């Protein structure tokens, strides 16, 4: 999918250099923030590995043809998206200078089409999402195949757009896309399978090398920083403070809806007529403990405070009860399945 210099107009090349340069600047900043100098040689040697591994032909069963692994996805699965992206830029630069794969002018386009999508979309959107609750062979397989296919599709689509924007070919957009996308879907599938095979091997042999791997296993992969009980206690205290103290500063001015109604209709209270409205109003007057956020027939500020705490408690109680009820029904439905 390497674009050659001849396929890019200077304006398109400049724009893509700017985009890739911005992504490179961001990645460099993140790598520096990590402050791990031992990672730099790993990035260099891993770049050389990807280059060497891409020269190996992997036989595709039943077709007689061969494929190679997907560099961006593999690098970001081992080094992380930012470090992987920087290594991929190095790979693309070496490929363009030493092996005439791509070109100096088209480097910005190639970095965007192959390194950006492969590393950032592949790692942050696909890999991270799949590995959120711990790693497994199946997840690695799925993330690799899906990641390679998706990022290659995005890259191929970008190639089409960049070539057409450069005014190089007379091919109509529809035909160009319909040729590029299916080919790269097949390539993506093969590259994804090869990448998955390599990553599964690494997972079995040295899982700590994979980005996002947690040694505590799937259960400990997303260990909460605070226990469940402590979280509930903090929430209860926060609700009490918010409802009890902050409600003292509640504005006496109308809220947004009331203000709008005043502007349109001249009043914030809707005129209601009819026996149903009257009956509902009477029930509400009788049952409401704290009408208008205060004690009945009292303007005391303690009424506002109490109404805040009381309201908070009722909301928490209702939420918790609702959750338990839903969980009860969910449990029953699972058992029936």
């Amino acid at each position: 999918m390497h674009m050659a210099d001849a396929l890019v107009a200077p304006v398109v090349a400049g724009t893509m250099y700017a985009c890739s340069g911005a992504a490179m600047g961001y990645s460099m900043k993140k790598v520096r923030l990590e402050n791990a100098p031992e990672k730099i040689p790993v990035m260099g040697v891993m770049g050389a590995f990807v280059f060497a591994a891409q020269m190996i032909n992997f036989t595709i069963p039943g077709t007689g043809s061969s494929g190679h692994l997907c560099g961006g996805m593999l690098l970001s699965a081992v080094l992380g998206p930012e470090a992987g992206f920087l290594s991929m830029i190095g790979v693309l630069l070496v490929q363009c200078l030493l092996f005439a794969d791509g070109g100096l002018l088209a480097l910005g386009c190639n970095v965007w089409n192959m390194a950006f999508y492969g590393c950032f979309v592949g790692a942050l959107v696909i890999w991270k999402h799949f590995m959120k609750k711990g790693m497994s062979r199946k997840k690695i397989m799925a993330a690799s195949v899906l990641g390679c296919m998706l990022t290659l599709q995005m890259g191929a689509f970008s190639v089409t757009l960049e070539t057409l924007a450069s005014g190089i070919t007379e091919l109509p957009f529809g035909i160009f896309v319909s040729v590029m996308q299916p080919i790269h879907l097949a390539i993506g599938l093969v590259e994804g399978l090869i990448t998955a095979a390599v990553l599964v091997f690494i997972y079995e042999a040295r899982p700590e090398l994979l980005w996002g791997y947690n040694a505590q296993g799937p259960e400990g992969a997303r260990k909460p920083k605070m226990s469940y009980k402590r979280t509930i206690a903090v929430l209860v205290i926060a609700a009490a403070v918010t409802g009890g103290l902050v409600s003292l500063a509640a504005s006496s001015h109308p809220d947004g809806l009331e203000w709008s109604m005043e502007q349109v209709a001249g009043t914030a209270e809707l005129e209601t007529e009819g026996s149903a409205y009257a009956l509902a109003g009477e029930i509400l007057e009788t049952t409401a403990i704290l009408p208008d956020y205060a004690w009945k027939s009292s303007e005391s500020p303690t009424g506002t405070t109490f109404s805040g705490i009381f309201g908070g408690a009722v909301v928490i109680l209702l939420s918790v009860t609702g959750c338990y009820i839903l969980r009860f029904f969910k449990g029953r439905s699972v058992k029936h399945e």
Partner: protein
Amino acid sequence: MNRLQKAVKDIHTVDAKEAGRKGQSKVHPLSRLAVTVLYILLTVSFPKYDLGGIGAMVVYLLITGIWEEISFREALGRIWPVLLLAGAVGIANPFVDRKVCWESGSLAVTYGMVSMVTLMLKGIFSVMASYLLIMTVGMEGICSSLRVLHVPKEFVTILLLMHRYLIVLLKEAERMMQAYRLRAPGQKGIHVNAWGAFAGQLLLRSVDRAQTVYESMLLRGYTGEIIGKRPVGKRGISIGYAVSWTLVLAGIRILPVFQMVGSLF
């Protein structure tokens, strides 16, 4: 020769040229890099029907190649992939753009044909310019130019390490492939059952090697930047080289050189 062997040979060719040139070049790599980028930029900026204009750009390639004693046969060996790519993208041009621009008897040349040939020439010239650059300055020269351009030192270090270990890992991969071929005669590539283990082993060895490399670097006083040999370019000659080529290339881009020379006769 398989791809791995060819890659090793290509790197050896560049390294040998670089080793043979040590201390001789008086032009700073940055000047050469700037001229190459300008050359590619001007080449691809020609209109799609300006075949004569692009043809004149061959002057730079010829002069540099002959002056620096670079084999054109080696350079031409690299143009096939780009020729195929440009051909595939430009193949529709002769069918879509059928307006005739030149006719002689039954032979007619359409604008579509001209634009396709122009596209291919752009590809060939750009690849050859990049090849001449790497053959004249080497990878270390490129890296030192990038540092002058304030590209972050971490990135330049990654690039240098990548270049240095490329040959090691390519040879290692080739050794593994050879061992595999000996155990699986007649097999075209790596069998699906060995996909993960084959490349995975290479990856694990690479990671271990990176750790050893880092420890060695620390022992030799690594402080975040690899200090390579400083390029020996002379300031005046480097500036003169860049300015004179800029003027020549701009002249070729603006003026119809081929027509002007032809009108003299």
